Every structure is written in structure tokens, then in C-alpha cells.
């Protein structure tokens, strides 16, 4: 009998502690803020630049926008006021300054420090397109190969002498045993000696079941303290530094349930992703001192069959302490929340579809306190 009492007590304690945790997690969240569209800027695309943007960066010092044109091996700099091109930086695919196998993405740190990725290597280049150094991607604490992409949503940054970036491990996403053995997600490359080390790994959520290729991403950002802040498509938390967990769950997502099986082909992985909720990139807007985390709502199976794959999005707004202060539904399906940047004038989201394929527009948003509006009405 005593044994049963102890078991019941233990079960009760587990329930109480988990409920308490849940209450702790959800309490004190007041959704007082929203985003208000305040501005639209547009840039002119030349005949060789695709309207599909994959890597775009705001350059704070010059107030310019840097856009990668993968097909021409160029970074194009735009004046944000006029929307006109002001400079092109051309890289080579062959020879001494060659970046072989195609450019995957770029991180424009400064005129003399432009990082270009071709997947398995990072090339440090200058604004003349010259390769100053090539870094092969190896980490002393893992045995498998991995890639970096430097797309817009991959937000690498420099901390001390190291380049911190999200990585994509060459491991099968449907192997639970791989995740039990820890799969690396964030990499620190020492730019002085070229040595690398993985500094973050996928959380235990990934050991619970199958999620597939579309869930094996890491979204990285940083803040003025140079903290390493990252999140994953699965999970209610944002991670900071060495693994501090911060609750950042969408109020529209109950939970993300893994599959028992996923058909191991692109359609199988896509089907599970489209019909399940997920989280997208996390951004830090230094000018408004806020974080924005993307949440993605599932489509129905019928929608999937009818090729309606675009998942409705919300933007979870967090203050400088990573406390949720609002959640905004993205009403315009053409806003591409994977292509965002911040300037002193707002948090800009790329308009995914323009009728004019030679123009790209970005909608700027400012944080707005909802209660102010209520008080005004009173």
C-alpha cells in the first residue's frame, strides 16, 4: 500500500510540477504590442537579378542594402533612399580568386570582410571581389560534415575573433539515433587560426519522433551584448548563450507532434511540414530593441493536395529581455518573413510578389503599444 501511495504521490508531484511550470511559462504574458506598417521602400532590379531574394543585408554604416545575385556571382549595393544600384561586387567562380560550386549566401560585415559561402567552405573576400582567405568547415568536436548557407534568415555575426553561424549537418533527418547522439546546430569559426568548434546542438525535442528535413534548421541572431540567440522549427523555446531556455511559444500553436513515419522523399518531407505547425526565423531589431520570432500555422491535408502550401504566419514580439509582449497575425500572404532586415526607420519585411519583376519592395513596421490606443478611446 505504501508503495502505491508513494507512486501516486510521485505522479501527483510530476503533474503539479509540470502544471506549475506551464503556469509559470504562460503567466505574465500580456499582448500589449503590435506592429504597424509605416513605410514602403523599393529597389530597382536589373535584368539579371531574380525577384526571388535569398540573401539580403542592411549595411548600417552606409545605410545601404546589400543583395546577393547568385546567378551572376555578384553582391549589389543599393541606396535605400533612391532605390538605385550604387555598386556591384563581382566574385569569380574559377582561378586564384575563385569560389567554386556556386555561391550559397553571403554575410556582409564590412568592405574588407565579406563572407561568402559555397556550402562546405567560407570565403573571406573584400569589396573588390578578391578572396582574402578560404576556411574549410571542420569542427574539432564532431565527426560528420556540415554546410553553412548565409541566407537572410541565417544571421551570422562576429564575436571576438570568431564567426558564429548556424550549420546544417550532413546527417539523415529521419534518424532518431543521430539526434540522440547530439546533432550540431551552431558553429564558431576562429578567424585567426581557422579552427572551428560546434557550440550548440539540437534540443531533446528532436529525439521524441520524426520531423523531417524541413524541421532541421537553426535560426540564429544576436543582440548588442553579442549573446548567441537561437531557436529551431520545433519547440516552444528560444535558447540563449550556453543553453538558457526562454519561453517563446505562439498562442496559436498547441504543440508540434512528431510523426511515426515520414516518406523519405521531398514530397513526404514537405507534406509533413506543410500540414504541421512550425517556427521560423528569429530576428533582433536593434533600433526598436525587440526580437521577432516567426510562427507558422499548419495547412489542412486537403490544402496540401490542392497545392496551397503557404503556411499562415504570426510574428511573436519579444522585448529586450526576451519576454513576449505581443503576437501579430501576418494578414498579407505576400510578405516573406524569411527575408527581413532592420533599419532606423523600421523592421522591414520583403514583399514576396510584385507584379513588376524588376522592382522589389519592403514594408517597414514599427512597434506600437495597443493599450495606448485603448486609452485614447477611453
Amino acid at each position: 500500500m505504501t508503495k502505491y501511495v508513494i507512486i501516486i504521490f510521485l505522479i501527483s508531484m510530476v503533474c503539479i510540477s509540470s502544471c506549475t511550470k506551464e503556469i509559470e511559462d504562460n503567466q505574465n504574458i500580456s499582448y500589449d504590442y503590435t506592429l504597424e506598417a509605416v513605410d514602403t521602400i523599393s529597389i530597382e532590379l536589373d535584368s539579371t537579378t531574380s525577384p526571388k531574394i535569398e540573401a539580403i543585408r542592411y549595411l548600417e554604416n552606409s545605410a545601404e542594402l546589400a543583395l546577393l545575385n547568385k546567378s551572376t556571382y555578384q553582391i549589389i549595393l543599393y541606396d535605400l533612399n533612391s532605390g538605385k544600384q550604387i555598386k556591384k561586387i563581382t566574385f569569380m567562380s574559377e582561378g586564384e580568386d575563385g569560389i567554386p560550386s556556386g555561391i550559397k549566401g553571403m554575410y556582409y560585415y564590412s568592405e574588407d570582410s565579406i563572407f561568402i559561402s559555397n556550402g562546405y567552405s567560407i570565403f573571406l573576400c573584400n569589396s573588390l571581389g578578391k578572396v582574402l582567405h578560404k576556411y574549410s568547415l571542420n569542427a574539432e568536436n564532431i565527426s560528420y560534415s556540415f554546410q553553412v548557407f548565409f541566407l537572410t534568415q541565417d544571421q551570422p555575426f562576429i564575436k571576438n575573433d570568431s564567426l558564429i553561424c548556424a550549420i546544417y549537418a550532413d546527417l539523415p533527418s529521419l534518424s532518431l539515433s543521430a539526434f540522440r547522439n547530439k546533432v550540431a546546430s551552431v558553429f564558431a569559426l576562429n578567424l585567426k587560426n581557422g579552427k572551428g568548434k560546434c557550440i550548440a546542438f539540437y534540443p531533446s525535442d528532436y529525439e521524441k519522433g520524426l520531423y523531417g528535413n524541413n524541421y532541421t534548421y537553426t535560426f540564429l541572431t544576436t543582440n548588442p551584448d553579442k549573446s548567441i540567440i537561437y531557436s529551431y522549427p520545433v519547440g516552444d523555446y528560444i535558447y540563449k548563450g550556453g543553453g538558457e531556455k526562454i519561453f517563446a511559444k505562439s498562442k496559436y500553436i498547441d504543440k508540434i507532434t512528431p510523426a511515426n513515419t515520414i516518406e523519405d522523399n521531398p514530397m513526404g518531407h514537405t507534406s509533413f511540414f506543410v500540414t504541421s505547425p512550425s517556427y521560423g526565423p528569429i530576428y533582433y531589431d536593434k533600433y526598436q530593441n525587440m526580437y521577432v520570432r516567426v510562427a507558422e500555422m499548419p495547412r489542412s491535408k486537403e490544402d496540401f493536395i490542392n497545392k496551397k502550401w503557404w503556411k499562415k504566419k504570426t510574428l511573436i514580439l519579444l522585448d529586450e529581455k526576451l519576454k513576449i509582449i505581443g503576437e501579430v497575425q501576418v494578414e498579407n500572404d505576400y510578405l516573406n518573413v524569411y527575408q527581413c532586415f532592420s533599419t532606423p526607420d523600421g523592421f522591414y519585411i520583403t514583399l514576396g510578389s510584385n507584379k513588376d519583376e524588376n522592382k522589389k519592395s519592403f514594408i517597414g513596421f514599427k512597434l506600437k503599444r495597443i493599450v495606448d490606443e485603448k486609452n485614447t478611446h477611453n
Partner: protein
Amino acid sequence: MHLFEQYNTNSGLQNNHVVMIIPIDLGCHSCIDKCVKLIRARKLDYANIQIIFSCSNEKDMQIFFHTKDIQVHKYVNIILDTKNIAFINNLVFTSPIIYYLNKSTIVRKVELTPINIDNELNNLISLNK
């Protein structure tokens, strides 16, 4: 194969023995490049082989051909699908794909992957030898 009527072409597509669909914006780049190399070398210039390039906008299609140095107007067996009709109708997703037809009926469908692409392209070339 009623679908191919949507391409509004006079090429007599339904009489072709082989239709190759290449998704240029989603597809595996190395597989696409191998297909393009054969097309540029004029090794697929046969009336019984129809090639469809598929993507979601006209500008990306133009940039693709400019980058790959293909002058489309010189080829009689290329169709440009800039409205992703092939994708919308489940004929192609992330890999180039070859459909072998017999009297407008698909008798064989092969998705090209880095593993099978060399053999499959050789098979395609050998059809007209």
C-alpha cells in the same frame, strides 16, 4: 496527358515519345546542369523528345537561359512553363523528371537523382542512335 494541352503549343506534344521536365528554381543544381549540358551540346535535338523548363516567373526563366548560355529560339523542342503548370499538376517537384510515353500514355517515369542521372541521360541519348 491532357495536361500538356495547357501549354498551348503546336509541337504535337502528345505524339512525343519522351518528355523531360526540368524545374529550374527548385531542382537539384547538379542534375539540372547535366541536363543543360546535353541540351546545349544538341544531343537531345530530336522531334520525339520534348523538353519543358518549369518555374514560377518569366524573369527567372530568362536569367536561367542567359546564365546557361542557351538561345531558346534555336531549339524546336523546348517549352517554357513560367506558370509552374507542371508543378501545379504534380508532374514535377524538386528533381528533373523524364516521362516515356506510348500513344499518349505514360509507360515509364524516372526522377533524375545524382545516383541515376548519368545512366538515364545515356538511355535518353541512345533512343535516337
